[in-house]
């Protein structure tokens, strides 16, 4: 449980600026709008558009 809830409150998708949601197991952060999933590696969210994958 390394990603704090406070942190998530100010986290948005770098592309469309919509809210992101923490996936179960804290494996990634998913944009509620464009459905891009940003990976979390070594407890650090990788908020790079190039590294995200769209998961419907």
């Amino acid at each position, binding site marked *: 449980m390394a990603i704090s809830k406070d942190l998530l409150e100010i986290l948005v998708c770098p592309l469309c600026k919509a809210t992101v949601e923490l996936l179960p197991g804290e494996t990634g952060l998913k944009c509620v709008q464009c459905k891009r999933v940003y990976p979390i590696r070594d407890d*650090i969210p990788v908020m790079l558009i190039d590294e995200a994958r769209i998961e419907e």
Partner: protein
Amino acid sequence: MSSAAVQGELWGKRPRDYAAYLEQVTLPLQGAALDAAHVMAGTHLLDAGCGAGLLAVLASLRGAHVTGIDASPGLIGIPRERLPAADLREGELESLPFPEGSFDAVTAVNSIFYTADMAKAMRELARVVRPGGRVVVTAWGPPERCEFLSAVLAGVGQLMPPPPPDAAPGHPGALSKPGELAALLQGAGLRVLDEGEVSCPFVFPNAETSWRANASAGPNQMAIAHSGEAAVRAVYIEADRNHTRPDGTIRYENVFLWAAGERV
């Protein structure tokens, strides 16, 4: 590959050497940026291009709440160790993962000239600061006032690969002309409040430490990948020889520039 991915990989090759030997050469500039951004206890600060986290550590010593973002997966693990409670993430300045108006202050110390689109990055910095909040950006001063650049830029430049057509500026000489930093702030809709310059002598106890420090820098890693370590090191051996003082210490006098803007 995006400019962030390219820079991120280059700066992450020798993160421990960067953190231990190179990051602190701009210590006076880091302090000036914190002062210009009015960072104090309780300030919610974003450090954009946080590197190994020196400014983030200094800001946390002032009692600020620090968020750091950097394009280098190799480097960002170091501030994670230094500041376990800080909010750190990998990302690029041109597309920040924060809502509008998230921070009281934003700093970008010697990072914005490495972005592919400096105007876009600046608009992002301006977007995430709150109205009335400050954004501070810094850059190298004119090359003729930076002994370090004068000593190594031409030599290392010859060892670099030819730039691709979509190359990032990525050049420490960018933004060094009078008024360029202020114009960048203004172009993003910020009101320019103040500008200044800071002397940052690069001091190394010996040539070996100088090389450990400098080999960790992104541009030198690019030159090493293209031309081999021996060729790049030869540039530094010659430069260091010309800047060795009577006690054996190597010292380059440099000037860095900063500009502070306010979101209206």
